[in-house]
């Protein structure tokens, strides 16, 4: 793999940048692989990278229906945080945040992880109780998260309106300083480049059409639009379309797929230095390095596979932003798009083996999967390589919906009396 550095950039500038190698090869599909990953998003590519890097499994194909990073990896609002309530979630997401910290160096690709702080606002007594419960739990789990009173919130985010002239005045906020953002496309490309360099084949425009099982029921091959591939291990990492792919192996998934919209403003000079989220007023906002305000909220109300949402959802998202930040009312929406998110009954992901020997699944990240990308890939690679879950993803089984050991992070959204 060519090394990327300022020096290399200088050197190759004098050759008119003619000597840069492709980020990844355009390999032909081989007839057999040790592991096939279905889905070339961030989680799938990270899985392939860690399979090669940490488990020495390099005879791996990542099959992508379209172009890598083109699903939710390239459509999300890039917020990274790990201040989750339950021990299981905190461990999983904090594993990711620790990997984010030196991901650029590990991949030799600048993914622009920017720990600018994520502040979650509280507007009601119930919000305060919930925030403090998170903060106490996080502290005892070794995850940074601190309570700020309204003045401290304002000091951290000067644009904030902490007066009582808004409908739901700000009563404080929970701040995770290690939280922040990263460049989503770079995550896909960085993992792809590093995985490719270790021998992983990234096959784009390759749709899986069937999953074949042998007489014992175990995985034996995957059929694609580019031909049949033999393999004994398949990892499905197909986000909003996981149910569709898993049904090819006769596994029914406890997932619902919803459109989730996001939008950006026109780019402006730095005006917003952190990430602010509000569950009660219901929106979140940050500013990208390019200068665009990046804004999102909740999913659309109805299940759908259409990668677009309804106008009234955008309306509610922006009225929330205008309520919190009235100086942004004259800013203008530049682009609005939708992705398809796969939601589990307890709003926590599934990182699990399945009843089908050789079939593994990584899905159910709902509206917040980007932040987990490195941790998810890391423990999923362990699960595929060893056949058993990593300590961290052991609770995130598919079976928990049968036995009731749920990890219900929607708890934070419970509403007061």
């Amino acid at each position: 793999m060519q090394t990327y550095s300022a020096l290399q950039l200088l050197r190759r500038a004098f050759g008119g940048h003619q000597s840069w190698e492709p980020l990844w090869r355009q390999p032909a599909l081989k007839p057999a692989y040790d592991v096939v990953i279905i889905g070339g998003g961030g989680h799938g590519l990270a899985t392939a990278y860690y399979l090669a890097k940490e488990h020495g499994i390099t005879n791996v194909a990542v099959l992508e229906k379209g172009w890598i990073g083109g699903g939710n990896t390239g459509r999300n609002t890039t917020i990274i945080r790990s201040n989750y309530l339950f021990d299981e979630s905190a461990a999983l997401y904090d594993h990711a945040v620790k990997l984010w910290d030196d991901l650029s160096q590990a991949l030799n690709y600048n993914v622009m992880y920017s720990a600018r702080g994520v502040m979650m606002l509280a507007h009601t007594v119930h919000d305060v109780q919930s925030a403090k419960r998170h903060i106490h739990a996080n502290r005892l789990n070794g995850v940074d998260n601190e309570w700020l009173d309204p003045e401290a919130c304002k000091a951290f985010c000067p644009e904030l309106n902490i007066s009582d002239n808004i409908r739901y005045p700000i009563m404080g906020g929970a701040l995770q300083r290690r939280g922040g953002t990263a460049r989503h496309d770079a995550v896909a490309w960085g993992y792809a480049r590093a995985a490719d360099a270790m021998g992983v084949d990234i096959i784009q425009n390759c749709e899986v059409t069937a999953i074949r099982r042998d007489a014992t029921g175990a995985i034996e091959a995957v059929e694609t639009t580019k031909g049949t591939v033999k393999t004994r291990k398949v990892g499905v990492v197909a986000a909003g379309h996981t149910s569709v792919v898993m049904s090819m192996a006769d596994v029914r998934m406890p997932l619902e797929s919803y459109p989730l919209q996001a939008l950006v403003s026109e780019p402006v000079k730095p005006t917003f230095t952190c990430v602010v989220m509000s569950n009660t007023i219901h929106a979140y906002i940050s500013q990208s390095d390019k200068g665009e305000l990046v804004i999102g909220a909740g999913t659309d109300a109805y299940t759908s596979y259409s990668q677009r949402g309804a106008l009234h959802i955008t309306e509610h998202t922006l009225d929330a932003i205008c309520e919190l930040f009235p100086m942004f009312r004259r800013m203008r929406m530049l682009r609005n798009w939708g992705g398809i998110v796969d939601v589990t009954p307890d709003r926590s992901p599934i990182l699990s083996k399945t009843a089908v020997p050789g079939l593994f699944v990584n899905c159910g990240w709902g509206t917040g999967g980007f932040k987990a990308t490195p941790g998810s890939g890391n423990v999923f690679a362990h699960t595929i390589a060893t056949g058993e879950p990593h300590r961290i993803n052991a609770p995130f089984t598919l079976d928990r919906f049968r036995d009731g050991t749920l990890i219900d992070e929607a708890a934070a959204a419970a509403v007061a009396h």
Partner: protein
Amino acid sequence: MSAPFRLATGGRIDRSKPLRFTFDGAAYTGFEGDTLASALIAGGVHLMGRSFKYHRPRGFLTAGPDEPNALVGVGASQDRYTPNLRAPVVELHDGLVAESQNRWPSLRFDAGAVNDLFSRFLPAGFYYKTFMWPKSFWKTVYEPKIRSMAGLGKAPTAPDADRYTQVYAHVDVLVVGAGPAGLAAALAAAESGRRVMLADEQPEVGGSLLHDVTATIEGRPAAAWVAETLAALEAKGVQVLTRTTAFGYYPHNMLGLLERVTDHYANPDPKLPRERLWQVRAGEVVLATGAIERPLVFPENDRPGILLADAARAYANRWAASVGKRVVIATACDSAYRTALDLKAHGIDVAVVADLRPMPIGPLVDAVRAAGIRVEAGTAVTGTRGRLRVRVAHLSRLDGRGGAHAPEPVACDALLMSGGWTPTVHLFSQSRGKLRFDEGLQAYVPSVSVEKERSAGGCNGVFDLAAVLADGYAAGESAARATRVRAPASRAFPVDGTHPVTGGHLGAVPHSRNPSAVKAFVDFQNDVTAKDLKLATREGLRSIEHVKRYTTTGMATDQGKTSNMNALGIVSEAIKAPIPQIGLTTFRAPYTPVTFGSFAGASRGDLFDPVRKTPSHSFAVEKGAPFENVGQWKRAWWYPRPGEDQHAAVRREVKAMRSSVGMFDASTLGKIEVVGPDAAAFMEMLYTNAWAKLGVGRCRYGVMLREDGFVMDDGVIGRLAADRFHVTTTTGGAPRVLNHMEDYLQTEFPHLAVWLTSITEQWAVTAVQGPKARDVIAALVEGVDLSDAALPHMSVVECRVCGVPARLFRVSFTGELGYEINVPADHGAAVWQAVYEAGQAYGITPYGTEAMHVARAEKGYIIVGQETDGTAGPDDVGLGWAIGKAKPDFVGKRALARPAMGAADRKQLVGLLTEDPATVLEEGAQIVADPVFEVPARMIGHVTSAYESPTLDRSIALAMVKGGRARMGETIYIPMPDRVIAAKVVAPVFYDQEGARLNG
């Protein structure tokens, strides 16, 4: 200041109405009808801004919303300042203040231009390859620097002073675009008599006809035909919206339109909103959105003074503004010849027309030659000179082998280019219609529709005026026919003075200069050059979406309107794949940027979310009560007496209620009437409890589970009749519970004859609680025996209170003798006041939500959402008794049977007493079994409620603790940041455990 480039005659400006304005502090004058761009061009100004990455000087490229370069900040004060506005669409008004962007210290001398000198080190995606060492520098040095260089304008810093509004409309036919095709379509649709709406983004209808001074339609000059057509449309009742951009095409023919109402006024009527957001549901849609001219991608094609050819024609014909004194035209398309002819007619020197095509032919070419203008075939511009304004164009004959001969320098002060026309298929594509690449036109055109729409005119790949009019009329006809009424007869529009145009070019223009040393811009605003695109393909980014994201081409504020097709051409050549194989990037709404405020509309401050007030609201205001936001409700938190803080007030309220009597406004509790012959059967399914045998006039505490077996809501439910239940819910849960009930009624139990009605707002509720409660209400209640025998705890009776119909509940959320008087909401305030007055003899004390919380915690009553969090089953919170064991089924029953629901280490509700009775725990604090621990600690639970109990005169808390009921008497620990607090596990009822006070 004078306007040296203002043409002596012509234009659609009103020369009797001069308008003064400033740009970067310098004063200028324009006329009514000018845009900021046309007025500045007339003033000789072309230097308008600096580009995003290299800070190169830039001028106007276009005369419309596709402008990538000339972006300005407009507004004299921060509360009316808007960044990034496109100067060609900013209408001039007197006193307008505009400034350039992305430059420091000034537009002419911009320090950021140093990037241009180092540009060879800053190829596409350079930031992915560097800024990684040392690691800490990303956050502290690199990212802040990159951020300050990026961005364009400055965000306003003060809250917006303007208002916005929203309009919803239904029409039979919506025509988008009022150029020739749109006008003809609207005519046809209007003749059918249906409701027709015609929307256009410009201040006046007419589109390209507004700058066509030679064409005639039906024997009249184009502009006159436009005026007559507009009058005819208005006479037929067509709703014509100007300054209105259709920005988004949403499912089921819902279009979003933004109407700009006041920005063009110097002193707008304060009653008017700044903008209106229209949400239009259309039976049929005609898209007549025209086409966008493409630049030519040649080296140094970005200097101020280099414009699109048709834009220069528009500035001259429509606004009487000349882009220069001596122009060079570079083209691959006939349409630029119209510009040559029109400019020459205005007396502007057209030095040469350089045509890429080896043998341009046709009537327009002949006319230009006949006018004495030099035409060079097979010739390209291969370079330009001029720092802040183009002054020389280098013309080179193409050698036919992908290169060019030595250049001839031609002096000029404007260079006009045309690479042909790109149909504006944005809305069509947003509607999910399928495009097809037309090899003849070298353009994507609409193919298969998904919505009920059709495209006409330029956006449909039709460019000849007579054909455009016919296409538009036919589209309007077809839309009218689809709405099932008599369609008008087809109609031909004879035209004259215009010629069909052909030609065009996609991709980079050939040249023989060192490709790595020159910059030929594709996306002007984002500074993406042809070599950036080639670099991306060399680096293996072959999907056009990857190329876009890697180079940022097409991602600027113009969304690639002028650049996407050229980028496609270059990528196609680089990876040796035909264009249709590469595909297009997705067109995203909005077509042009839309103000955030217009989406918010009136939804701000108190209107952001409806404020719901209880009947005692003004009473509470008079008493100086602070209010708590609970859902949409404002609830009195406590009623302070002079000198009292929260603590003292709550303490007094609880003590008074327990020793004598208190009153509380419980109107916010959700109320649902469940009515019908199968009401009891329905209740059996929705709540865990048994309902069939509940007697009329009796109440029961009900527990509702979600499908997953966790507690969703609770409340007291009274049976008013065999077929009628009065259900109460939590305040915040009311809408959720009604939705849940409706959902099950309609999808799972449709065979049950049950009707659900929300009655939360129909009944006001005054709770009277305390040992003297009966004495207080006795005088107010008519005809009911209030004795414990006749109306025991958990009863309900319909009666009259204070002379109005009432539902009187004997219930308690405090542990004391209590009543809840439900009366029709209109009488709520009067009854509240009557109770207050009747209670004076007993020292009745109004109490707020905080005292209510404390009192119920003393009794160990849970609050759903506080003790429960969506992970607590009924048994976990001590409500196992409320599960009807004999019931065959209820929602959540199956989930309760899952193994984990019966595990011994589930979190269970307990009481906590701190070792130090003065220490009040913090709600949300976590609990450990061992005071000595390492992080990550093993947590066994958390504190859900904690108060200083006025009744016990010590701190109390409720908590959810793993295996809690087996830990009674154990000491557990609550680690705080600065200390560890010890507490004893006790039963969760701190007061009157036997319940004697309820039954007094």
